[in-house]
């Protein structure tokens, strides 16, 4: 699952169309979803980005990758250029975050600073936005740095100020980078699914829970044992029939534990 946090409706619109996302009613924030993507429109600013991320995390039932997509300013970069943030700074607190890259993206990277108000005086070599730091600070509680990224498209620069930005222009800028964004999302999702497969709990775990009563601590222990058993016996599925004669949860745990001896 990919969770996208985006500040403005006009930024979201091209993505909603491209990925065929459907509006979900009765949510605090505008929320659009498909089988593999959730997109939430947070509103402008770090706090809005953080609270919307938290809201979306509360709705997400499986480990997700997180993306903040939107526009940003830069002193000299051309309008419409796409960047992936390799450093995110909260300009007010000077706190930094460093997304981790585990695959080649083909997208240029840049440092990104999040400000409280729109900026017209651009610092050298920095992308300027108003959400990424809030988004990152919130979402780094929900997954590791490899699965949290910010994609920014240059909307203003020294030659083209923020005052010239309008909704149509923003949608057009985002639309112009949909292909690399889609490729990035696809690769990130593949990485996430591989990781989720590696860490997944085998289905037999739930079957065992249905059959015997396990305390909370025992459930944790059982989950570990079932995973380890499956790793050591990749060709053989653990079955309820094999455990059927065991009287209680304690016996099940002992049986599985003993099976893991060298």
């Amino acid at each position, binding site marked *: 699952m990919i969770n996208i946090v985006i500040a403005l409706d006009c930024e979201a619109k091209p993505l909603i169309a491209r990925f065929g996302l459907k509006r979900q009613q009765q949510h605090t924030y505008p929320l659009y979803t498909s089988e593999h993507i959730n997109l939430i429109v947070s509103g402008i600013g770090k706090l809005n980005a953080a609270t919307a991320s938290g809201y979306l995390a509360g709705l997400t039932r499986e480990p997700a990758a997180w993306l903040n997509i939107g526009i940003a300013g830069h002193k000299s970069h051309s309008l419409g250029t796409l960047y992936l943030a*390799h*450093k995110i700074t909260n300009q007010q607190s000077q706190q*930094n975050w*460093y997304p*981790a*890259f*585990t*695959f*080649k993206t083909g997208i240029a*990277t840049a*440092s990104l600073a999040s400000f409280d108000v729109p900026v017209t005086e651009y610092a050298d070599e920095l992308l300027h936005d108003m959400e990424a730091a809030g988004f990152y600070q919130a979402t*780094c*509680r929900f*997954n*590791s*740095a*490899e699965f949290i990224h910010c994609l920014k498209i240059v909307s203003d620069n020294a030659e083209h100020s923020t005052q010239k930005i309008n909704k149509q222009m923003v949608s057009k800028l985002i639309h112009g980078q949909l292909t690399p964004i889609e490729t990035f999302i696809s690769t990130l999702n593949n*990485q996430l699914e591989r*990781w989720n497969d*590696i*860490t997944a709990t085998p289905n037999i775990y739930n079957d065992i829970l249905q059959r015997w009563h396990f305390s909370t601590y025992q459930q944790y222990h059982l989950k570990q044992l079932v*995973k*380890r*058993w499956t*790793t*050591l016996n990749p060709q053989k599925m653990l079955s309820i029939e094999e455990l059927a004669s065991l009287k209680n949860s304690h016996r099940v745990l002992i049986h599985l*534990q003993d099976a*893991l*001896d*060298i």
Partner: protein
Amino acid sequence: MMQFIYAEEAILDDPHTQTLIKRFKKSTLIPVKHYGEVFNRKGQNFRLQKQQPALILARKNNELVLPAPAGYGIGGNHNYYFSHMLNCVYDCRYCFLQGMYRSANYVIFINFNDFKQAILDTAANHPGEQTWFYSGYDCDSLAYEPVTNFAQTFLPLFDGHANAWLELRTKSTQIRNLLERDALDNVVVAYSFTPEAISQVYEQGVPSVDKRIEAMLKLQNKGWKLGLRFDPMIYHPDYQQQYSDLFQKIFARIDPAAVHSVSLGAFRIPKGFYQNVALLYPDSALFAHNMENTAGMMSYPIGLEKAMLEYCHQQLLEVIPKSIFFTCTPPSKEAP
């Protein structure tokens, strides 16, 4: 190709930093205040980062030379270790580093001169006593030599300081800098091995056993003192045959007389690190079997561990004298 290099702002102008940055011209340079901002922060996945590690350039300001852990030694009076680098270019599943560090990025501490001074100061505290400095504790000593020039830089330091002994511990065949100079009496190049069948499963990116033996042979011919490290020993259902074959293969080509020391060590990893690694590699059989916790150290059941150590100990003593045999054992355990 290194996609990203993080470098501490304070060392950006250092000539060593500049040399390393220039080596990776196509990499993106990201200045950071302190390397820990990238390396130590929570919420990182070591396993995923290992797919594409970045380079971190930093300065180590204190604790440059540290006492070696108890049970870590090859007969010297005093044992210390130092780490010019954190993390390893290889990917050995049994390695404790993957449980100790949150990040798989490679950290290189560029202030080699400070390390050298700390080594000299430490050796000076033990005049006339054999004082060992182990360089392969937090990284492989030689595997990144083409980038770091670590051995080339540090070997001259030991030439002329007879009580200071250096162990280069490695699985690498990057030995050109050693072959291009005269061997030193107080430097041991120690090669780590597991049997080929185990290496193929658990040592990703590591030169084959044959290639390591070939490198040892070149060093032996050049007069370097050699070490053999079977640490950690990894269980295999046929471990007796596997380890026997390995010993035979090595000593068929390496002259035991050229071997300075041989050490054996059981697989062991602190419980906290073990828990971290087991979460990262739930699909690895190495962490799926039952382990025993002895005084906070996770290892094979004591009976098995003892049997493995004793068997290999016996096998090795058929080839080497007892005087050069050492066991790396935590204080809570009894050596064979």
